[in-house]
Structures are given as structure tokens and as C-alpha cells.
């Protein structure tokens, strides 16, 4: 009964230098179903899908389409077999319009269409086809518009990619695959960049596509999404196939366990907060964008005290990142004051802010957090290299740094092939993040600012990092967290601040609020006047 499956990948094995990324994995996709592909980072999901899309060649195994063995040597072969892939990182040309991006690579060419073609017409058609290659934008636009209407994408075809939102860009990627008449779509972690509302929209689109008889492979870390749309789930772990399950017959806990190989507590235990003195106070902070002259951070005031986790939640791009930049000094605030342990630090340099005990786990690991071509040893002293502990008369003490780095590697369980000498570029995202967290939490600090610390990480690493942050709080440090994911917000926070268009529009106690209420504030439907500066220490004992 092989013909029931539209795609079969049988015993696929793929080896890289010293790891086996896929070890005899089999994957079957039925016609008109959504298959969830689950696994931790580095489990081999992306490799497997890249093989299906022709980006890699398998060392062993075969791929069958509708029961026939096919060979997919490159993405062009995949497209010819109607396989399309929506990548996590979009592959769009920023300066082109939506329409141009969609037709890129398979543009309809202008030609004369008549019942009777004269020789001259034929000549013109031939010349255009072979030499001039003038694009028939009218035909293209008609075809794309048909798709847009059919699936209810609400999108302006003439907008430039650089002007539209991330959600829209993703829609462009989806329309791109539909335009090529693909009926097998691979979604590689499409929701990582979307907000809650946008995710709902995307899931609806996926269900619509399924109704049209398309088959979908859906890769996601988020159990909620998987369970909402998938018919079946395939779990892989460490390059090996673990189990195929029907969504109706399994639970989130079972999937998580199969993925990680041990039981995972998605809810972390949190003792009552023991709140001490004020560490950071932000007083009427404003930041004006240099290009648009708009206030991207607008009169923000709040404080963070010892022993609490204050979370700034909101939809991406509402000024959270800029607020953190203004606090840490990467951008200078235009007005307002910052106090740290009662000291006015508004005009301090980044170095001075680092020295008085402000730790910052940045959002972008590769841009700010690490020097990727440095070893772990060199990265863990990125801020401390010129302290007495690590240098003398301007010379670096290699031995001390090695010792210090070894401590961090052991304490934070960083997995690296050649220990401290491992170049961080070669490490997985989770381990890179552990190096940064290890550095920021081992140095002398009173406050930790963590911006989306679990972005792009798998369930196992998320659990570890959440525990680390809670430990910080329990040991009396102040923690300021910026998060886009409501799950994380509810697990960790003691206070939730909602940011919308540069302002703080709501403050909530996680025990007394709901996801729906937060959603209203995050989308700007509701606004409060907030005084987020909380005075006094207290010890909340149950």
C-alpha cells in the first residue's frame, strides 16, 4: 500500500565530519495531511528536510514520491517534484516588491497569444523567449492574485519587502511555494518569528492548505501549535527515529519525553519571592529614533528589586529592544535617568555600567553576545579581560583565564568538543547561549538583564536556562526579562509589564491575570496609566 504515501523517505542516513546527523530515519507523508516533525535542536530535523529539499545528498537510503524512487540532487529537482520549503530565515530580496519576489526564478514571459500566429509574431515570441526575456507582469499578477484570493491572504502585491511586516514576509514565502504549484510544503519553524495572533493566522492558513489536498511537514518546538494542526507526529532524537504517533492518541508530555529522552517539567517550581532593596530604577526614559524622529521609547519608568523577576512583555518591535539598549548603554537615551543601587548611572559608559554589576544577556547571540571566531576561553572574559584577575601590566594571564573558563564550562554544562579551546562558531545555539549566560552570571553582578534568553532553543535547554534564571532570583539577584512568549512570561515573572509602542501600558501580577487580558494590552486595545515603580521590601510567605 505504498501508493498511499505521497512522500516516503526510507532509511535515510547522512553523516557529517564526525557526527551522524541522520541515522536510518524513515519518514512517510500521506496525501492531504499535516505531519508534525518534533525533535530537539540538533536532532536532525533540518538535515532531514534539507535532504528532501535537495540541499544535501543522503549517504544511504532512498526517497520515493508516489511510490516511485526519485533522486533529488538540488532544489530545482525538488521544485520539479512539487516540493516547496518555507525557511525559518526568509530568502527574499528586500528591494523588490512582493510580486517580484514571488515570481523570482519562474517569471512568465511576455508573448503574443492569438489563434493564428504570423511568422512575425512567432519571431517576436522566439526573440523574447530566448533573448529579451521581457516579463509579463500582468499575467504574473493575475496568477498570484488568484492564489491570494483563494486562500484569503490579505496582502498588497506591489508593496516592497522592506516595508512589510515579518508576518507578511512569511506569507510571501508561502505564496511563493503555492505559485510554483507545490503540493508538498515543508514549514521549518515558521512560528519562531511570529506573535500569538499571527501564529493563529498561520495555523488557519495551514489548515486551509490541507483542505486543498496539500501535504505539509511542520517543524516546531511549540507543542501547542503541533497539537492544534497536526494529524500525525514523528519524533526524532539524536539523529534517530523514535516514534510515529497519532495526535489524537498522545499527550504533550509524552512527546516532550520522547524528544528529550527523559521527563521534562514544563512548569518550573517557583517559591514565593523574597524581595529586597531596589537595584535598578528607570526614570522617565525616552529614546528618539535617529531616522524617523519618532519616540521609540516613551517616558518609561519602572524599577527592579532584589529577588524578583520583572518581565517586559509585548509584541516584537514595540520598543523593548531599544529600552534595553538605552539601559545598557548600547544606545544613549535622549532624556530620563537611570539609577543603580541608588547611584545615578545615566551618563556612565558601557564599561562603567558593566563594572558596577549590570549583566546583560543580549537578544542576538551572534551580533552582540559572542565573538564567534574566538574560543570559549576568550569569550568568557569579553568584559573582564583587563581586570587584575586576568591581566597584569597590560599582559593577559592565559592560565587564569583557562581556569576561570573551565569553571564556567563545568558549572553551566557547556558541551564543547575541545573544551575551552573550542571556537564558539562551531557550537550549537544552546551551548553558545550557555557560554554567554555563564559569563554574565559568573561575573560580579546585582542585576541580570535577559533578552529573549531561550530564543531558538530546544526544550531541554529552555528548562535549564529557566532554572538558572529562577536560581538567580532565589539567591537575591534582580532579574529583568524581556520575552515575547507568554508561556515563558507566566512561568518566570513576579511582575509583568506590557510594552506597546514604546510605552508601558499595563502592569500585572501573573497570578491574577490571563493570557487573553495580556493579549488585549499587547495589541494596544487597552491601556492603563501605570506606575511601575514599586517601593519597599517584603517577604511574601504563604
Amino acid at each position, binding site marked *: 500500500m505504498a501508493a498511499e504515501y505521497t512522500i516516503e523517505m526510507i532509511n535515510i542516513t547522512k553523516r557529517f*565530519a564526525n557526527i551522524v546527523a541522520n541515522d536510518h530515519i524513515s519518514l512517510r507523508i500521506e496525501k492531504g495531511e499535516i505531519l508534525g516533525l518534533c525533535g530537539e535542536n540538533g536532532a536532525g530535523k533540518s538535515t532531514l528536510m534539507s535532504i528532501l529539499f535537495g540541499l544535501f545528498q543522503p549517504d544511504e537510503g532512498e526517497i520515493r514520491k508516489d511510490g516511485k524512487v526519485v533522486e533529488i540532487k538540488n532544489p530545482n529537482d525538488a521544485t520539479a517534484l512539487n516540493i516547496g520549503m518555507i525557511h525559518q530565515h526568509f530568502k527574499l530580496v528586500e528591494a523588490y516588491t512582493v510580486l517580484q519576489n514571488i515570481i523570482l526564478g519562474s517569471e512568465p514571459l511576455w508573448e503574443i497569444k492569438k489563434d493564428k500566429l504570423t511568422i512575425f509574431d512567432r519571431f517576436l515570441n522566439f526573440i523574447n523567449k530566448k533573448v529579451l526575456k521581457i516579463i509579463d507582469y500582468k499575467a504574473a499578477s493575475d496568477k498570484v492574485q488568484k492564489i491570494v484570493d483563494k486562500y484569503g491572504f490579505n496582502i498588497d502585491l506591489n508593496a516592497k519587502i522592506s516595508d512589510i511586516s515579518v508576518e507578511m514576509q512569511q506569507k510571501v514565502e508561502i505564496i511563493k511555494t503555492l505559485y510554483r504549484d507545490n503540493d508538498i510544503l515543508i514549514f521549518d519553524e515558521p512560528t519562531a518569528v511570529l506573535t500569538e495572533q499571527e501564529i493563529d493566522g498561520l495555523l488557519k492558513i495551514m489548515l486551509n492548505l490541507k483542505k486543498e489536498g496539500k501535504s505539509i511537514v511542520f517543524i516546531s518546538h511549540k507543542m501547542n501549535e503541533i497539537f492544534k494542526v497536526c494529524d500525525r507526529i514523528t519524533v526524532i532524537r539524536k539523529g534517530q527515529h523514535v516514534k510515529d504517533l497519532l495526535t489524537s492518541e498522545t499527550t504533550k508530555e509524552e512527546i516532550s519525553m520522547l524528544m528529550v529522552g527523559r521527563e521534562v517539567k514544563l512548569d518550573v517550581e517557583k517559591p514565593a519571592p523574597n524581595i529586597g532593596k531596589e537595584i535598578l530604577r528607570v526614570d522617565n526614559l525616552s529614546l528618539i529614533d535617529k531616522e524617523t524622529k519618532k519616540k521609540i521609547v516613551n517616558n518609561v519608568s519602572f524599577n527592579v528589586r532584589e529577588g524578583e523577576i520583572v518581565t517586559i512583555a509585548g509584541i516584537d518591535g514595540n520598543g523593548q529592544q531599544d529600552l534595553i539598549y538605552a539601559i545598557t548603554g548600547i544606545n544613549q537615551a535622549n532624556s530620563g535617568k537611570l539609577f543603580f543601587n541608588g547611584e545615578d548611572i545615566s551618563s556612565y559608559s*558601557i564599561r562603567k555600567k558593566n563594572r558596577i554589576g549590570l549583566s546583560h544577556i543580549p537578544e542576538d547571540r551572534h551580533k552582540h*553576545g*559572542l565573538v564567534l*571566531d574566538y574560543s570559549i576561553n576568550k569569550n568568557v572574559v569579553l568584559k573582564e*579581560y583587563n581586570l587584575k584577575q586576568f591581566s597584569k601590566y597590560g599582559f593577559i594571564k592565559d592560565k587564569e583565564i583557562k581556569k576561570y573558563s573551565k569553571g564556567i564550562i563545568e558549572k553551566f554544562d557547556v558541551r564543547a568538543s575541545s573544551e575551552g579551546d573550542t571556537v564558539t562558531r562551531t557550537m550549537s545555539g544552546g551551548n553558545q547561549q550557555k557560554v554567554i549566560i555563564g559569563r554574565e552570571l559568573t561575573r560580579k553582578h546585582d542585576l541580570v538583564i535577559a533578552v529573549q534568553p531561550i530564543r531558538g532553543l530546544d526544550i531541554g535547554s529552555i528548562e535549564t536556562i529557566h532554572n538558572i534564571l529562577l536560581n538567580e532570583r532565589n539567591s537575591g539577584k534582580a532579574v529583568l526579562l524581556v520575552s515575547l512568549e507568554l508561556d515563558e512570561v507566566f512561568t518566570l515573572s513576579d511582575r509583568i509589564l506590557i510594552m506597546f509602542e514604546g510605552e508601558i501600558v499595563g502592569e500585572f501580577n501573573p497570578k491574577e491575570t490571563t493570557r487573553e487580558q495580556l493579549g488585549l494590552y499587547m495589541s494596544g486595545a487597552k491601556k492603563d496609566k501605570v506606575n511601575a515603580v514599586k517601593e519597599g521590601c517584603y517577604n511574601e510567605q504563604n
Partner: protein
Amino acid sequence: MNKIKALFIKCFDTVNNGLTKFTKKESAKTVITSLWCALLGLFIGFIIILFINPSNAFDGMAATLENFFIFSNSDTRLYYFGSTLAKTAPLIVMSLSILFGYKCGLFNIGASGQYTIAFVVILFAGLVGNLPWYLVMLLAMIAGASYAVITGLLKVFFNVSEVISGIMLNCIALYLGNGLCQSNTTVWDASHGESFKITQGSQAFLPNIGLDKLFAGNTVVGIGIIFALIAVIVIFVVLKKTTFGYEIQTIGLNPEAAKYAGINKVKAIILSTIICGALAGLSASLSAQNGFNSWQLSSTVVSAGFDGISSAFLGGLNPIAVVFSSYFITHITDGGSVITDLGFAPQVANIITASIIYLSGFSAFIKQYISDKDLMREQKLLCRGNNKKEDK
């Protein structure tokens, strides 16, 4: 018999493993890459001269490679080896200038201009001022540094690319050099249409602290080469062992992370342009104060800075390796200059060096190729290992 066979296999395996381990090292890859560049460059150069003058091609190539080995007398050989060394010293220092800037993310294309300004200062200080050699050298370094710092200031405060300002400053330096040299009769030798050289006997001539005895009485082998080697060690230590070196390399590799870590970019960039300029100035000093070079009227920027770029890249941007790459380039240019006797135009040597230098631009590509081959070999081994397991 079997024992011997086993022993042989064991030996072979040990050597093979050792080799694999060696070639896996990043530094080893760089060395192999540079060697490949040089070999391929020689080969292409050879093909070119084969077309120009087939009958003398072998002799020409041999002469280029032999350089001073062409003499049968060992003393003469030593003598000319000394000359080659003296000519290598400025190139080594110039490569250091390029590579130091590169580590900080600066492409010091203005090195030629810094060299020119320093050169003019040397001529005036040495010929007009009649100052002692060490003062002249110091002035040259100061001149180069102050000329280079213009680039640094423009970059830091006005965000002007160092490549653009470097090219402009090169032109300014060139015409400034032409004008200034011609304006003074002590400096300008009107009868030859070039400046006077700083010759032996002048106070500004580099001393040779007895090195001439080592090199069969060649008095130009002064302390230049020693200064060059000292510069190599200093730069190596600064880059590897100091906090300043750590700072500038962080800026070069990831300026955003450097900002995040609180590293003062303004200070680091200005300091490194100063060091680049001082090195370019030292390079001018080593090439002008040994009597080899004079200032000649020209409408093209001097090539010293650009030679430094190729030597720095052929040396894989490693301060130790540039000693060898600089020597190699000087060796064949020097050797090439004698093949005019064989009916070649003197430019032929330049063709050979040019093709080597051109190939050093491919060094990244060759390095990638070596790495890929390594990967493939490992994969094959892995497959073999797995197959064996399955067989069992």
C-alpha cells in the same frame, strides 16, 4: 615475516595519524595554503615566460629561483644573500603594518602614503639635517604615524572609510613628495633626475654592528633586518598576549560585540592607525637608510604598501609567517632582476611575482579546498569503520 609486516603497518599508521593531526591544525593549513600559492604562482609564471622566450625559459626560471645561488663562490653567495636580507627587512615591516591594521578591521591601503611621507622626512633629516640614524628612524616613524592618524580620525569621527581616505592620502603624499624633494638642492640630484641616496659614511646610514663580517664584507646588511625581526616579535606579543591586542582583535572580528563589552573603539582604532603608520615609517627607514633606494619622480603611488599587502596575505596574516613570505617575494624579485642577460625584459620577474601575489588572493579558496578534502577523508574513514561494524 608477518611481524615485520605488522610493524610496517603500525609505523605507517603512526606517521599517517601524525600527519592528519598536523594538517588538521589551523596553522598547518595556513602554511600549506601559502606553499600552494607560491608553487602555483611559480608554475603560472613559468608558463608565461615560456610563451615570451621559449628557448631561455628554463634558464630564466632557474635564475629567478636561484638568485644569489647563481654564483659559484660561497663568499659571493653570502654577500648577495646579505643584500637580499637587507631588502627583505622593509617588506617584513610593511607586511606587519598591513596585518596589524587588518586585525583591527582596518584595511590600511594608505600604507604607501605613510611610507612616502616618512621617506621624504628621512631624506630631509638625513641629507639636510645630517642627523644620526636613530633620530632619523624615529622621525620617520613619527611622520608615518601622524600621517596615518588622519585616516583614523576621519574614520572615527566622520565615519569615512579608511580605504577611501587612504587612497586620497596616497595621492597627496606622492605629489607632496615629488614637490618637496625637487625644491631642495641638497636632496635633489638634478643631474640624475632623482634624489640623492643616504650612502655609507652619512650619519643617517644604518650601522651594521659587525654584521658585515658574517656576510663576506657586505656592509649594507645593517641592523635593519634585526629591527624587522624585533618588530615581528613585538607585534606577535602585542596581538597574542596583551589586553590591547585582545581589544583590537575583538573590534576587528565583531565590532558590535566589542561595543557591548564596553571596549573603547575610538581609542583602539586611533592607537592602531598610529601603530600601522609607525610601522610603515619604519619600513621606509629600513629601505632608505641602507643606500638602496632614492626618491624618483613618479606619477604613480609607490608600490611599497601594496607589496606589503601581498606579502601579508601570502603569510596568512600571521606575524611570524610574514618573515618567510616577505623573504620569498624579495628572493624572486631580486633573482628576477638578473635575468635580463638571458634576453628577458626585467618586467618578467614582476610577472612571476605578480602571479604568485595574485594567487595569494586565492589563499582563502585553497584553504577551503584543503579543509573540504580533510572532511571527505574523515567521512570515508567513518564509512569504512561503519561498514566493518556491519560486517561483524
